[in-house]
C-alpha cells in the first residue's frame, strides 16, 4: 500500500516558513494513518449504547457491522473513551465548515500530518498506469451504509453512469470530471474495483477524489436513489407527483440537493461517523453511525462521541456573544481579534481554551485591478505592472497589521503562504521587494507611468485629464475588508490616487466581478493551490484571476469559446499554470511552479496587504485528540483535517 501512496510522497517538502508561528507541528511522522498494525479480527469494541442494541437483537454484532479490514485510525494523542456529545454551531443552513469538519468521506484524504500526502479512505488503494491517464481504484471491501446495506462499486457506477453522466439529472458535466477537454470514462471492473480513464496524463485528477475544492460526491447510495430513478423504478414519476412535483427528475434532484456535500438531511443512508437524524431549521442532531467503518488502534469502533448537535445561529454578533458565553463546545470561525480580550476574560469561567491560530488566507484583504476594464485608458493603465507596483509600495502593511490584527498577521503579497515546495529564497526576495513600503518609490513609479499632472486637491490626473479615482467594490460580510480599505484609502491619497469604495450585496458583487464591470475589487485571497494541482486558470478562483481578469478566466474555462484571450506576460503565466497541472516530471513541475511564482511577484497581479490573519478559536477544555489549529483552515484545497471522529471527552 505504501508503494502506491508513495507516488505523492515523493514531492519535495520545504520547511513551512509562513507557518512557523503555528508552533511545532513537525512532530509525528508523515506515515499514512492507515498504516497502523492490523487489529486481529474478533476483538473489536463498541459503544455501550450499541452493545445494548446488539444484546437486545436490534443490531448485528460489531464484527458483522465492520468491514473485514476496517480503516485503522492513528488517533492524534491517546485512545479515547466512548460517550458524550458536543454542541457545535451552524452558521447557516448550508454551512460548510462545521459539517465538513465533522462529516466528510471522500475516496481519498490528505494526511492530517502532511497535507501533500494522499492517504486512503473509502478507497483502500489505487494505482496509475504509466502515463497517468488511467486510475484504478480499489474500494475498501465490506463497508456498510448507515442502514446496513453493503457499499460496493455499484454505488459508484450508479453515481457516475446514471446520475453524473445523465443529461436530464446533470445537464452539464462538472469540471471535476473533465480532463483535457473531454469527460472522463468510468468502468466497473468488479464489486470493489473501478477504473477512471482520462484523455491524457492527468496526475491532478487524483486530488479530485479527495475533498478538493468544489468537492462533489464520489458515490451515491444506489439502493436508495434507484427508487427515485425512472430507469429503475417505473413509478418514479408517480412518486414525484405525490410530492407536488411534475416529473421524476425533479424529485430525484430535490433529494440529491439534500445530500450535497456539507448539506445533510435525514433520509438517505450515509457513510459518515454520525448520521443526521433530525433536522429542523434551528438544530441538527447527528447520531452515531453504528456501521461506521473506522476503528482506533485498540480496536474500538469509532467515533467516540455519541452525538453532535448543530445549533443554528446566524447573526454574527450573536455567534460571538454565545461563543464567549461558552454555549458551544467548539467554535472555529466567527471571532476576530476584537473579541480576543473577551475570550481571554471568560475562558476560565466557561471552561474553554482560547487558541489564536492563523487563518490561512494569503490575503486578508487584497486589491485586484481589473485588467479587462472596458475603458481603454484605464485598461492600459491597469495593465502597466509599474502602476500596480507603485500602489503596492504605497501601502504601509506593518501599520495595517498593527491596527487591524494587533501585529499577529504577516505582511504578504497574497499569492502564496510560503509553504509551497517551489517557494524558495528567490521567490521570497521578489515578494519582499513587491511589498516594500516606500512612498518615494511609489511616487517615482507613478510619475514614470505618466501620471504627473495633479488637480487642486493633489490627486493625479489620467491621460484623458480625469482625476485618478479608483472605485473599489467589495461584497458584504467581511468587516476587516472595510477597515483595511479605509486605511488603504489614506495611504493612496498620500501618493495622489483617490480610492472610493462601495460595499455591495455579495451576489451583486459577484455579478459585477464576473462581468469585469469594476475598477478594483477587494476580497480575501485564498492561498495558491498549485501544490495540490487542483488549481488551474479555468477554475473559479485560481489565484483570484476571476477577480483581476475575469474575461481571461472565462477564456480558459470555455476552452477559448468565450471571454478574451489573455495577452503578454499574463498569458505566459496563466498558460504555465494551466500546463503544470498535468506535468508528469516532478523536477519540471517544480521549475514551472517557481517560474510561475516569480512572474506573479514581479508583476503584482494582486496587491496584497497582510496574510495569515490571526483567528481566535475556542475549544471546550475537556475535548481530547485535537489536531493543531491549521486543521481548521482551508489551506489544503478544501481538505479539512479536524477528524472529529477521533475526539473524545475526558470526564
Amino acid at each position, binding site marked *: 500500500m505504501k508503494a502506491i501512496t508513495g507516488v505523492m510522497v515523493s514531492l519535495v517538502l520545504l520547511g513551512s516558513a509562513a507557518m512557523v508561528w503555528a508552533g511545532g507541528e513537525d512532530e509525528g511522522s508523515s506515515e499514512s494513518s492507515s498504516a497502523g498494525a492490523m487489529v486481529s479480527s474478533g476483538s473489536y469494541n463498541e459503544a455501550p449504547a450499541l452493545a445494548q442494541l446488539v444484546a437486545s437483537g436490534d443490531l448485528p454484532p460489531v464484527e458483522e457491522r465492520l468491514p473485514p479490514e476496517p480503516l485503522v485510525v492513528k488517533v492524534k494523542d491517546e485512545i479515547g473513551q466512548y460517550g458524550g456529545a458536543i454542541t457545535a454551531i451552524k452558521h447557516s443552513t448550508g454551512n460548510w465548515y462545521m459539517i465538513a469538519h465533522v462529516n466528510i468521506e471522500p475516496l481519498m484524504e490528505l494526511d492530517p500530518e502532511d497535507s501533500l500526502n494522499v492517504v486512503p479512505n473509502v478507497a483502500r488503494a489505487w494505482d496509475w498506469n504509466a502515463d497517468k491517464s488511467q486510475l484504478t481504484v480499489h474500494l475498501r471491501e465490506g463497508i456498510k451504509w448507515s442502514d446496513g446495506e453493503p457499499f460496493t462499486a455499484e454505488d459508484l457506477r450508479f453515481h457516475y453512469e446514471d446520475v453524473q453522466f445523465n443529461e436530464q439529472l446533470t445537464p452539464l458535466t462538472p469540471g471535476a470530471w473533465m480532463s483535457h477537454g473531454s469527460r472522463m470514462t468510468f468502468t466497473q471492473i468488479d464489486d470493489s474495483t473501478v477504473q477512471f480513464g482520462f484523455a491524457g496524463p492527468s496526475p491532478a485528477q487524483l486530488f479530485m477524489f479527495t475533498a478538493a475544492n468544489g468537492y462533489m460526491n464520489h458515490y451515491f447510495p444506489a439502493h436508495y436513489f434507484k427508487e427515485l430513478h425512472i430507469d429503475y423504478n417505473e413509478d418514479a414519476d408517480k412518486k414525484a407527483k405525490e410530492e407536488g412535483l411534475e416529473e421524476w427528475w425533479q424529485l430525484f434532484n430535490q433529494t440529491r440537493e439534500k445530500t450535497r456535500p456539507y448539506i445533510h438531511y435525514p433520509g438517505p443512508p450515509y457513510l459518515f461517523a454520525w448520521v443526521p437524524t433530525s433536522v429542523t431549521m434551528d438544530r441538527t442532531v447527528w447520531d452515531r453511525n453504528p456501521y461506521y467503518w473506522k476503528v482506533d488502534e485498540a480496536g474500538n469502533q469509532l467515533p467516540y462521541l455519541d452525538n453532535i448537535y448543530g445549533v443554528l445561529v446566524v447573526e454574527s454578533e450573536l455567534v460571538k456573544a454565545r461563543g464567549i458565553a461558552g454555549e458551544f463546545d467548539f467554535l472555529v470561525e466567527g471571532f476576530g481579534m476584537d473579541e480576543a*480580550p473577551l475570550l481571554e476574560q471568560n475562558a476560565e469561567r466557561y471552561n474553554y481554551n482560547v487558541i489564536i491560530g492563523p487563518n490561512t488566507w494569503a490575503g486578508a484583504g487584497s486589491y485586484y485591478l481589473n485588467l479587462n476594464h472596458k475603458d481603454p485608458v484605464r485598461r492600459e493603465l491597469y495593465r502597466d505592472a509599474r502602476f500596480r507596483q507603485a500602489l503596492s509600495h504605497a501601502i504601509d502593511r506593518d501599520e495595517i497589521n498593527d*491596527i487591524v490584527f494587533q501585529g499577529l498577521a504577516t505582511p504578504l503579497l497574497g499569492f502564496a503562504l510560503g509553504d509551497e515546495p517551489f517557494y524558495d529564497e528567490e521567490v521570497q526576495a521578489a515578494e519582499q521587494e513587491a511589498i516594500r513600503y516606500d512612498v518615494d518609490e511609489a511616487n517615482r513609479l507613478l510619475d514614470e507611468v505618466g501620471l504627473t499632472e495633479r488637480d487642486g486637491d493633489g490627486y493625479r490626473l489620467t491621460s484623458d485629464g480625469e482625476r485618478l479615482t479608483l472605485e473599489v*467594490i467589495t461584497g458584504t460580510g467581511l468587516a476587516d475588508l472595510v477597515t483595511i*480599505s479605509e486605511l488603504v484609502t489614506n495611504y493612496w491619497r498620500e501618493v495622489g490616487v483617490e480610492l472610493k469604495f462601495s460595499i455591495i450585496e455579495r451576489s451583486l458583487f459577484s455579478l459585477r466581478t464576473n462581468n469585469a464591470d469594476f475598477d478594483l475589487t477587494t476580497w480575501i485571497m485564498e492561498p495558491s493551490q498549485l501544490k495540490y494541482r487542483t488549481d488551474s486558470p479555468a477554475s473559479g478562483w485560481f489565484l483570484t484571476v476571476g477577480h483581476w481578469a475575469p474575461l481571461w478566466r472565462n477564456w480558459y474555462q470555455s476552452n477559448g469559446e468565450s471571454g478574451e484571450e489573455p495577452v503578454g506576460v499574463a498569458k505566459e503565466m496563466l498558460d504555465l499554470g494551466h500546463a503544470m497541472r498535468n506535468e508528469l516530471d516532478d523536477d519540471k513541475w517544480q521549475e514551472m511552479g517557481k517560474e510561475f511564482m516569480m512572474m506573479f511577484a514581479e508583476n503584482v497581479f494582486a496587491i496584497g496587504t497582510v496574510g495569515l490573519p490571526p483567528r481566535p478559536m475556542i475549544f471546550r477544555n475537556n475535548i481530547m485528540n485535537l489536531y493543531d489549529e491549521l486543521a481548521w483552515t482551508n489551506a489544503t484545497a478544501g481538505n479539512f483535517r479536524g477528524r472529529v471522529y477521533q475526539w473524545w471527552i475526558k470526564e
Partner: protein
Amino acid sequence: MSEIAAPGAGQAPRPAGPAGPVPHAVEDDRYFVASQWQLMWRKFTRHKLAIAGGAVLAVFYVFAMFSEFFATHDILKHSSEFVFMRPQKIRFGDENGWGLRPFVYDVQKVVDRKAFRRVYVEDPETRNYIRFFVHGDPYKLWGIWEADLRLAGVEEGAFYLFGTDKLGRDLYSRIVYASRISLSIGLVGVFLSFVLGCTMGGISGYYGGKPDMIIQRGIEILISLPTIPLWMALSAALPTHWGTLKTYFAITIILSMFGWAGLARVVRGKLLELRQQDFVTAARVAGRGEGKIVALHLLPSFMSYLIVSLTLAVPYMILGETALSFLGLGLRPPVVSWGTLLKDAQNVHAVLLHPWLLIPGIFVVVAVLAFNFLGDGLRDAADPYK
C-alpha cells in the same frame, strides 16, 4: 406664508360649538387682533420643552453646518497609536493645583499581549492644555475654502473627547461630521411625502367618489407592503455604480413615494369631517374655487396635525437611517452618518469593552427627542381650540 395665515386667522373663532376656554381678560387687546402666527408664537414660547428642543436642534444644525470647524480632528485620519482609546477626561486641576484652563493628561499606549488589549496609561505629570481656535488638521470648508482653524485642540499629545474607534480616529469629530448627513439627507424625502400626502389626501377627501376609491385602494396596497422586502429590493435594484450617498438619497426619495400613504389617509379623514362644516359651505357660497378652499380653508384648519406629522417624520427618518444601516441597506462606510457609526457600535466588543462607541446613540436619542418636543410645542401652539 402670511397669505395663508390671514384667512386662517379670520376663520379660527368661527366654527360653532365648544371653542375651548376663552382667553383671560387680563391679556391686552393685542391678543384679540393678533394674527394666527403671532398667537402660535406666544403659545409656543410658553412651552419650555419645545423651546429647549428647538434650541438643541439649532445647536445641532450649526454644528452640522460648520462641522469642519467644530470637529477637532480630520475624521478620516487614522492613528495606530490610539486604537480603541477611551474618552479622555477634561480636567481643571488635580493634587498638583487647580486653574481655569482645561487640560488633559498625556496618554501612552501599552500593549497587553496576553490579554490582547491595548491599554492607555495617563501620565498625571504631563498636562496638555486645551487651546481654542487653534490651527489643526487642514480641511476644505464645504469643499471650497481651505482652512485649518478648529474650535479646540492641544499643542501636543492626544485629545480625544469621546475616545477613538478601531482605526484610532476621533469619535467626537466623526459624530459632529456625521450629523451633517443624518440631519439633512432625509429631509428631502420627508418633504416629498408631505406634499404627496397632502395632495393625494386632499383630492381623496374633498372630491370623494371615484378618485377617492382609486386613491384609497392604492393607499391600501402601499401600506400593506412590508417595508423590509421593499427596502432590500430597492437598494439592490439601484445601479451599484452610484456610490453609497447617491444610492441612499435615491432610496429616501423612493421611500417617500411610499411614505405618503399614512398622511394621506389622515388628511382624507379630516377633510371628510370638515367639508360639511359651515365655514366651508360659507366659502363655497362666497364663490371660492375648489382648490383654494382646500388649500386656504381646510388645510390650515388642521395645520397643527400637519406640523406635528412633519416634525415627527424627521426623527423617524433619522431612526430609519440607522435601521437601514443596521440591515446593511443604508449608508455604508466611508460615508459617516449616525447610522454607520452606530452600526460600528453594534458589536459585542463595543458594548462590553468599548462602550464609548455607543455615544452616537445618545445623539440620535437627543435629536429625536428634540424634534418630538418641538413638534409637541408646535402642536399645542397651532391648535386654535386651546
